[in-house]
């Protein structure tokens, strides 16, 4: 039996909930036990948004054991295996879920909180944020998903899928491109989303 925890974090309107729902459905298709939650209290109002996706993956001969397979909807401290941050300031917020084993992807994009506006606070740039997180895990990568989305699709709507593509290409998630592709089609997503995931995967491969 294996557990796998994915955390998607960002700001309202960035598509955090959409990737979360996609990953949950894809996991269910694979026969995993899927649990998760969405924090979106103030999402329409530029508040922080999270989606936690948790899988229990049983071997073929394993049976469901409530003592070992019951998951809480929130990821315990340090237990996130994959963290996708669609906005870099938000990566700082979710640091308690990250351990030395986590993979962290940070989109090089910032949305200035109003508090910073009112009090003239400066946000640390994405690279500084990535270096801070490297104190916790070596597996931190900055991805220029917003720039790529803007260039390829004319707006920022595909950032979430590009990030997912990068995550898939890392080859550490218990899901393949095909798993995601079928699920996207089932959910009625447009081909552009599939193209965005492919672009994300290429981005990653180009870097390695």
């Amino acid at each position, binding site marked *: 039996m294996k557990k796998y925890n994915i955390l998607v974090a960002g*700001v309202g309107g960035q598509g955090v909930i959409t990737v979360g*729902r996609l990953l*949950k*459905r894809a996991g*269910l298709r694979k026969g995993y*036990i*899927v*649990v*998760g*939650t*969405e*924090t*979106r*209290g*103030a999402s*329409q*109002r*530029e*508040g*922080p948004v999270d989606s936690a996706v948790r899988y229990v993956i049983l071997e073929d001969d394993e049976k469901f054991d*409530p*003592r*070992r397979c*019951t*998951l*809480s*909807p*929130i990821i*315990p*401290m*340090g237990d996130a295996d994959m963290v996708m941050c669609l906005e870099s*300031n*938000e990566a*700082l*917020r979710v*640091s*308690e879920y*990250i*351990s030395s084993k986590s993979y962290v992807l940070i989109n090089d994009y910032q949305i*200035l*909180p*109003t*508090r*910073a*506006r*009112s*009090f003239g*606070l400066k*946000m*640390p740039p994405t690279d*500084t*944020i990535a270096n*801070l*997180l490297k*104190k*916790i895990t070596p597996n931190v990568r900055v991805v220029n998903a917003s720039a790529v989305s803007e260039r390829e699709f004319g*707006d920022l709507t595909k950032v979430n899928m590009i990030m997912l593509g990068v995550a898939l290409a890392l080859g550490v998630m218990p899901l393949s491109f095909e798993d995601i592709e079928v699920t996207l089609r089932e*959910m*009625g997503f447009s081909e552009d989303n599939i193209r965005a995931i492919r672009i994300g995967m290429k981005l990653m491969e180009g870097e390695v």
Partner: protein
Amino acid sequence: MSMEEFIEEILVDEPGKKVILSGNEAIVRGAIEAGVSFVTTYPGTPASEIGDIFSHICRKISGLYFEYSTNEIVAIETAVGAAWTGARALVAMKHVGLNVAADAFFTICYSGPNPGALVIAHGSDPGCYSSQNEQDNRYYALHAHCPLVQPSNPQECKDFTIAAFEMSEKLDLPVILDANMRTLHGLGEVTYGPINPPREGKRFVRSQFKYVNAGFVALSNKKRLLDRFRKAEEYAEKSDLNRVFEGGSSTGIITAGGAFNYVMEALDSLGLYDLPVLKLGIVHPIPRGLIKRFSENLERIIVVEELEGFIESDVKRIAFELGLDVEIVGKEYFPAYGELNVDLVVQGLSKVLGVKPKKNYDEIRKLATEVKSKYIPRDPIFCPGCPHRATLYAIKKVVGDNAIFGGDIGCYTLAALPPFNMTDFVICMGAGLSIAAGISHIIKDKPIIAFIGDSTFLHAGIPGLINAVYNNANLILVILDNRWVAMTGHQPTPATGISSTHEPTSPAVKLEEIVRACGVRFVKVFDPYNVRSAMEAISEALEHEGVRVLIARRECALQAERREKPRRLELQKRGIAAYYILEPERCQMCEECYKNFGCPAIKKSIIDGEEILYIETARCTHCDVCRQICKSGGPAIRKTIVNPHLLGV
């Protein structure tokens, strides 16, 4: 998934089908499987989606009635009316909604919902994520002798809803289905059961001894209530909603609801698999036989529950009454405030049991705290084009900080935050007005201004307004009329002009007519997008005495944008584009629009080493307010239309 596809999926009659649902969605499915025929609600996070889904599926199921009620007491009364004709009725609300419904709720328990059934689906909010408090409504159940069940995951949300209907019908008592935010917003697998046709109400049979709670009838109903509650105890004794996970250890755990998941995962993470666990599905009444059997070979019981030590007190009481020789611990190891989680339960359990957690919490926390210290908290903000922002801006321009501001609950609670800081107290829906009235009887040297949303006004503002007028309070009430219940997901109000099931109608009520009928003489309606007229209305109100009402009328920008944006994009395809631009050459960087008005569509950037402001076209809703308030002589902001001549084509 589109709404249509979702509706199809949640209504499909395919027993055995597995889907991913949230707790809220699962409650809807459970109610449908149980043959619910009558649903009422007043929205409130985390339970709003229950009503919202019913508002969309209602017309697909013949014999199903749904309404958005004006508040929770109205909702529960309407629902019990249907139950008294034989319907299976559901009422959904958030935890504080039960305060509003309480007056009816207590006495409904006296009468009982038979011949129908009444389930109160209700969302609690440990951690106060979107509420003014985190009250533990299990005490309502205790106080009213009302059974209460707590599901732990979406599958149980569905199954417990069905069980709750059966219990309610059988016991002639309402049943509270109490789920926390994590369970309602959490997602998990749900296996469908068969759908039963709506159990509709048929006739109302007069039965004064059951329904007329006055004098001796009320008293005899109280006695009947105690009898029915005793039956509930017998029912709970046999119910399979309570489950025992066996184990050989002499320490056992009792838990329920969301806390169950934390307990199981915490035990797994501690590598402890032999502690017996009693998971209570029915949390009130807790059956004493079950507690007795569970504690037979135990020396110690640890009670793990969210919020107050409700189960803990009850188990201690039962242990005392039965003379059980077992130590019972609970809240001294687990916090009675905020949300629980796996880590808090691991730490609590390891303290009681004297074992060491596998994780080094100090180390994780130390690192995370260091990293997190660089995080700039992201306060929620008014959306671009939000009419509330424009109203607050205009008021601030006229009265400055020299006023007492009564706040209330809704999107406009954000008035408390920068750049406005225009809220001095928030208690509950409708309280802002009457607290301001109270202050106005004492403080005479400052304007007193109370805010209230349109939905909040209809929910809880009217008695307060009548009282303020009758008793000569001296204040300005600003009704922020954005046409919708915006905060909880844009439900309609009786003044919207949309029915509970989304058909256009004419508005059932007009706010200014209500206000005048309450006895208010000074009533002015203004459009907050017109800054000058807004400021004039406010100045005029300040010149008068007594209760004055200003209605700031402009539709929620999110709702308006949902209609307008596709239109703009369509025009763009024809080569016509209108947008607002901020010209850096004219801008004097006074930052009035950026800082004091604070529209998030106005942004700062650095070009050639110099700071400039610009408007993010994709987010601008064309409200025009920034143009009106621009101070750079000859405004730096203007609307540009590309190819206007094409418009006539």
